[in-house]
């Protein structure tokens, strides 16, 4: 087992190098620079912007820039943002808690909805409950988050005036009041993201359950006179959850990566909004760091999913 993990980790190195190279080259080839705002400012002559480009190394050949970046990264130096002249790691760490809170809550909400609904729907396929759940799930994952987000804002903020639609990290008050406000402002983004995730996950859980529920050993268990509840929870769910666990493990990097659209709509200062604003302003060091960390997490959680798989299902052996 440990040998397997070690081997996988070693294989990860070249693939991460490859990923970083591709990311870097694509970003370097992308047009524009971080100083476009200066162009129309008559107070700043163009040669000032040009001098800054040179100073930040934007005029060096791509391979040199890549080697510089790689070397710095290996020494733990993530570089600094061209736009805010701040260290990239500080910038990311500043935004990580918010993303973890909002996106993490949304994932938990999705699981809390998807597992019970999916399981119950699978025990009674084609019943009224199943039909309704299926239809809602279909509607849910057909509606993009930018649409549901704006819809929620119109209903709950503008019309009903119940919830704020600008997420703020600076809530006044302490104790219970602070907690209440923190939860209140997260309701809409968490609901928008959670329901979207729940919709597709419900269908996944349901089909995983249906696969298992037809197997002979389930019939055997029932024949032995074990109650429906126990059969479903102890015998069916346990096996049906194996692919679901993998799916969840692979979703976790997304929790760190943030949700670009939802974060933008609700002004959540998370990783997703950092990424999109950095891309728009051609802030290469930040884009590079966020995407590369994301790539590392994907590789890592793939490995974790594989290991988990082997642990959950002893028939699968890892060599």
């Amino acid at each position: 087992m440990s040998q397997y993990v070690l081997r996988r980790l070693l294989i990860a190195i070249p693939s991460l190098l490859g990923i970083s190279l591709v990311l870097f080259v694509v970003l370097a080839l992308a047009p524009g620079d971080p100083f476009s705002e200066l162009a129309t400012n008559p107070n700043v002559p163009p040669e000032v912007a040009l001098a800054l480009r040179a100073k930040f190394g934007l005029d060096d050949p791509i391979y040199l820039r890549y080697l510089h970046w790689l070397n710095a990264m290996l020494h733990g130096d993530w570089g600094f943002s061209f736009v805010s002249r701040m260290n990239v790691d500080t910038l990311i760490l500043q935004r990580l808690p918010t993303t973890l809170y909002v996106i993490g809550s949304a994932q938990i909400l999705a699981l809390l909805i998807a597992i019970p609904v999916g399981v119950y729907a699978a025990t009674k396929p084609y019943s009224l409950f199943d039909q309704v759940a299926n239809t809602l799930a279909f509607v849910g994952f057909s509606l993009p988050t930018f649409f549901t987000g704006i819809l929620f804002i119109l209903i709950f903020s503008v019309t009903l005036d119940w919830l704020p639609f600008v997420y703020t990290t600076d809530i006044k008050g302490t104790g219970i009041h602070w907690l209440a406000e923190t939860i209140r402002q997260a309701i809409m983004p968490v609901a928008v993201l959670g329901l979207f995730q729940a919709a597709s996950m419900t269908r996944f859980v349901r089909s995983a359950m249906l696969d298992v529920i037809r197997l002979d050993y389930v019939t055997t268990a029932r024949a032995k006179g074990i109650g429906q509840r126990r059969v479903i929870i102890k015998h069916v769910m346990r096996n049906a959850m194996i692919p679901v666990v993998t799916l969840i493990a692979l979703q976790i990097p997304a929790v760190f990566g943030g949700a670009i659209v939802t974060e933008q709509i609700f002004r959540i200062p998370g990783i997703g909004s950092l990424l999109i604003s950095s891309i728009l302003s051609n802030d290469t060091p930040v884009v590079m760091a966020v995407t590369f960390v994301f790539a590392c997490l994907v590789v890592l959680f793939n490995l974790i999913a594989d290991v988990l798989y082997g642990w959950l299902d002893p028939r699968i052996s890892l060599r």
Partner: protein
Amino acid sequence: MLDKELRSMIGDVKDGRMDRRGFIQRLAAVGLTAPLANQILALGGVAMAEGASTYKPTKRGGGGALKLLWWQGPTLLNPHFATGTKDQDGARLFYEPLACWDPDGNMKLVLAAEIPSIQNGGLAADGKSVTWKLKPGVKWHDGTPFTADDVVFNWEYAKDPATSALTIATLRDITVEKVDDLTVRVLFNKPTPFWADAFVGAPNTIIPKHLFKDYMGSKSREAPTNLSPVGTGPYKFVEFKPGDLVRGVINPDYHMANRPYFDSIEMKGGGDAVSAARAVIQTGEYDFGWNIQVEDDVLLRLEKGGKGKTVYAVGGDTEFIALNFTDPNTEVDGERSSMKTKHPLFSDPAVRKALSLLIDRESVKKAIYGRAGRTTANFLNGPEKFVSKNTTWEFSIEKASKILDDAGWKPGADGIREKDGKKLKLLYQTAINGPRQKTQAIVKQACQKAGIDVELKSVVASVFFSSDVGNPDTYSKFYADMEMFQIPLSQPDPSQHMRRYLSNLVATKENKWQGTNFPRWVNKEYDATILAADGEMDPVKRAAFYIKANDLMYQDIVFIPVQHRLKVEAAANNLRPVVSGWANETDNLFDWYREE
């Protein structure tokens, strides 16, 4: 003639025969009003009046929290590194300049004790120096006194290229010297009629020497105070998250009486302009929304029964269509739009003239800009004193067609006009931005009716405005026949703005397209006029030069002005913001209050 009359009027004001207001009204009557009328008086020997204040509260604080919404939040708080106005706006909450501009373009004192004038010895008669007296008793937020050393330090800090300050442009050609602890002198290397650039306005705020002196040059990025400013402003720094949040609390020792009104301030970033308008006007979650570039229809709808309203500020920003004087489709020595070529169609003045008749400015205003736009025939739309009254504009497809007919451009089989085998087909580019694409559509339609085929192209703003030499789509390469955007006028003076179009500043491959004259227009008379204006200390003659420069552009049809654009902000109904078209939104923040 005007010159003589003005001179005698200035004499009247000096001797007390005419009051200031009377003088300014007279100037208005001859078309020379507002912002720089005061500078006329200053140079004519009468001290410039400080802008009047509308501030009512009679005690400091007690106004609760002020919540600002900037849909692009500040990403850094050192004014010397500010790449855009959003960063200057954020830094301005804590740092202050010597003086700033009020909504009428008048100077307002901040850290300076008096406005330099010839009487008080502040202005040198030859225009080569200005002496600023500083307010005594001003303290930085950490208690250290603010002195002339701080002002001199800012100049030394920014002019060092290793610091990578963007304010280097303003500060590198001047010399700043300390006269005494509360007096600094700015020396120019040539007569400078517009002396209020360095240390004036939000882009030129002053940082403390004692906290930055160890971080000059290449170490500039390491200063901890880059992210946690210690200024002299009405609010003290609390917290900063780049692109997301800036927070401050009242400075109880602020140097202006009864100010500030608010106990704390918060500037939230992120999102988009429409939802920012909604959060201020419709739901009232925020008190003030910055730069609400939203269609007027939408704003009018939001304002119905809303909790806020829109606020406009007139400046000198002109949205224009520039015509290319070189050929974008012929490559000479590896360079398109080369100075060795002439534009095949625009070299016929009739085509340029016809085109200027085909821009329906009134429809653009009605359908797109609404209350945030004014139609204009001029490239230079402010300050008032510099605006030409000699120009007119018109929209007429018939006249345009007639001009083209007369010039020999006859419609071909496909309805597109042609002459000598050259078809009237134009490529019209701009940055991606809703109003711009709609304007493009309006122009295209009118051109089509007149037999001109217009192809539209839109480029992402970060590419269009970039200084990337390798990219063919930048505005300065101008690989199109016409292009539309605006260059903001960031101070109440046109000198930098108009200098861009000198013949020797043409953007070429040789200067890596860093030349500012992107239409590649060459006019000897224009060059002479601008150079004369640059050294002219007589404000009336100087204004006349800029009016002439504008009229030369108008005659040659270098630019077709589309709209004189106003600043649009959103504010809560009870908020009394002071916003100037000549300054950043937060420049007059010390005068903001809430009506109870």
